[in-house]
């Protein structure tokens, strides 16, 4: 068996391009997610249409611009300028002050601000709307209501659990781990087994006195090792570069990862029994396994907001359950009592895949 292991390792290492991708990909993704990709809104370009130009409107404008959310693109002179500016994508919001603003506050007790938002991106529009209103509200409380104090005030204390600094890496690292483990253990395993089939060497191996199980295990071991090394690298990187902790038990994390690895391996073997060519194995892994996992496992997009059909589909993705387990161990720091259900599901899937693979393998042998 060790001969197989050695041969497989040699094959892998000679293929330096794939190695670069295998190790480089998670690194690049973590870097991107950690430093570049964020849903927060900063430096949004806005325009101001100030029909009044008095002390109050200037102060409010000043308050808006001194926050890091907004950058002033320009002052508009007329309503007609708004449409082209939006169309060219130069600004995301226009703040319109009514004329005689300060005067109206004094005499009528009320003045009007109109916000116009480019809602082609509804998320950004909502957030900018909330920020703008928040800043205006703060101004009102601090500057305009001093004479007449607001009689009743509710203080809101905000606590963010598990991720005080709201780092986006926390959300993505569990998904990155899942995808990489699956990529190496399922996809590459299936490709390598099918390669032997394609080259015709599988038949030769099968007629030899070596048991088929030994062949498969020998081929698969290098990928287990690779996956594990990759996992450790990702964990170390997350911890030391981004301060993502392992609040729970590290050995438990590794044990669950090993379980997930074995499940992916069994899945890879199953795919290999269903494919005749490498290209087929690749397509199957990519479109039936990887892509759905990335989309539906809760890696990037929250599952809770998806329509029912997709939520059900997500339940058959093994990645979904593993991501829950990782988040529980790394970020919530809880013990297995909280995710025994997910663990059992992955265990069950593994057994199912192994049984199916053996059945298919035996059927083919009989042919």
């Amino acid at each position, binding site marked *: 068996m060790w001969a197989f292991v050695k041969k497989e390792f040699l094959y892998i290492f000679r293929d330096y391009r794939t190695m670069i991708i295998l190790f480089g990909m998670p690194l690049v993704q973590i870097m991107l997610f950690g430093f570049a990709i964020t849903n927060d809104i900063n430096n949004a370009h806005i325009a101001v249409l100030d029909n009044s130009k008095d002390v109050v409107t200037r102060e409010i404008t000043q308050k808006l611009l001194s926050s890091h959310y907004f950058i002033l693109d320009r002052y508009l002179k007329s309503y007609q300028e708004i449409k082209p500016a939006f169309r060219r994508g130069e600004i995301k919001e226009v703040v319109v002050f009514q004329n005689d603003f300060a005067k109206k506050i004094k005499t009528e007790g009320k003045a009007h601000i109109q916000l116009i938002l480019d809602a082609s991106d509804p998320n950004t529009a909502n957030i900018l709307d909330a920020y703008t209103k928040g800043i205006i509200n703060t101004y009102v409380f601090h500057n305009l209501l001093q004479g007449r104090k607001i009689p009743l005030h509710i203080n809101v204390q905000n606590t963010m659990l598990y991720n005080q600094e709201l780092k986006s890496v926390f959300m993505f690292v569990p998904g990155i781990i899942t995808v990489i483990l699956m990529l190496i253990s399922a996809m590459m395993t299936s490709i390598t087994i099918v390669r032997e089939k394609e080259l015709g060497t599988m038949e030769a191996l099968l007629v030899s006195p070596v048991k088929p199980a030994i062949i498969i295990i020998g081929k698969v071991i290098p990928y287990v090792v690779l996956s594990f090394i990759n996992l450790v690298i990702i964990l170390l990187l997350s911890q030391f570069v981004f301060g993502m902790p392992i609040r729970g038990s590290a050995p438990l994390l590794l044990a669950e990862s090993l379980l997930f690895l074995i499940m992916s391996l069994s899945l890879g073997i199953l795919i290999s029994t269903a494919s005749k060519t490498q290209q087929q194995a690749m397509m199957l892994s990519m479109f039936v396994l990887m892509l759905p996992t990335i989309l539906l496992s809760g890696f990037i997009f929250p599952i809770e907001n998806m329509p029912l059909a997709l939520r059900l589909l997500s339940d058959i993705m093994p990645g979904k359950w593993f991501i829950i387990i990782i*988040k529980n161990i790394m970020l919530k720091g809880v013990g297995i009592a909280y995710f025994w259900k997910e663990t059992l599901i992955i265990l069950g899937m593994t057994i199912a895949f192994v049984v199916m693979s053996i059945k298919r393998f035996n059927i083919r042998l009989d042919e």
Partner: protein
Amino acid sequence: MLPIIILIPVLQLLVLSYTATFEIKNIRLVVVDHDHSTDSRNLINKFSGSRFYKYLGEESSYKQAENDIAAGKTDQVLVIEPDFEKKLITEGNASVQVVTDAINGSAASLMAAYAVSIIQGFNENIVVHKSPLHYHGLPIDVSSLFWYNPELNYITYMVPGILVLLITIIAMFLSSMNIVKEKELSTIEQLNVTPIHKLEFIAGKLIPFWIIAMVDLVIGLLLARFWFGIIIVGSPLLLLSVAAVYLVLVLALGLFVSSLTETMQQAMFISWFVLVIFILMSGLFTPIESMPVWAQQLDKFNPLAYFVKINRMIMLKGAVFNDFRKDFFILAGYAAAMLTFSILKYRKTSG
């Protein structure tokens, strides 16, 4: 193979449009009410009546509520202090605590903002009711207009971008893998000894993929109109023209990748690697303006960034050529350069 090339993008468009959302709806809320007064109950009703929230019920202690978050049963907990109502009346000041599961950082800040805005609305409400003589409401009235997508439909926003994603994936994978397949099967040597000119060979390979990608785009646009109800505000012809140029660029990229690799597996991995980076940074899922300056500079080399932006401008805002002509010329120049470069590189390796 052909049905796959048509079917898979259609499926992906449908699935991806419904999954790719960062909208927050149905925030699960558990309340720990230490006061059980009229005011506290009214506050809770404000949450249970909100369309953003799904009120799960009460827990009798904070510990139990926090456990609910740990077990993944709820997203947020609202804690109302004892004597909440009394404190409001006698001292004019009371506190509540909002605890949010912040593993998804950006979702958490939105959830917290919603909670705060509901509480502030409640605050203003009771002030107006309890002291109408002294207080007429806030002196500044702010109203908001949402243009181009008044119903704030997230799918309307995502579909144009997803269309770009799909044709890019098709074009990139087809072009990078197909040429490498010839290399792997060694049929490429046979082709090399024929009198066919290198340019003819490449054109013969890329033009069919270009056509397939354009067809996929048209199918996608029809789906967008008749399934998702998204009306193309701008000119469809303009859109297709820009797409034509864009696809040349992507195909040239695929060609470039294939010249670097020897096996289909490598071609697929490298294409995927490059695509993932481009996709994440393209402004499709997260805004480009929010990225740090160095990332935005790098993005100037990202073809997807240009086309996602132009596509959205045309489809959602009815942009005309003048509105984005600078970006278009950059895209066209990039395509020409990439195509030339890839053809030259290809010559050397096949020779």
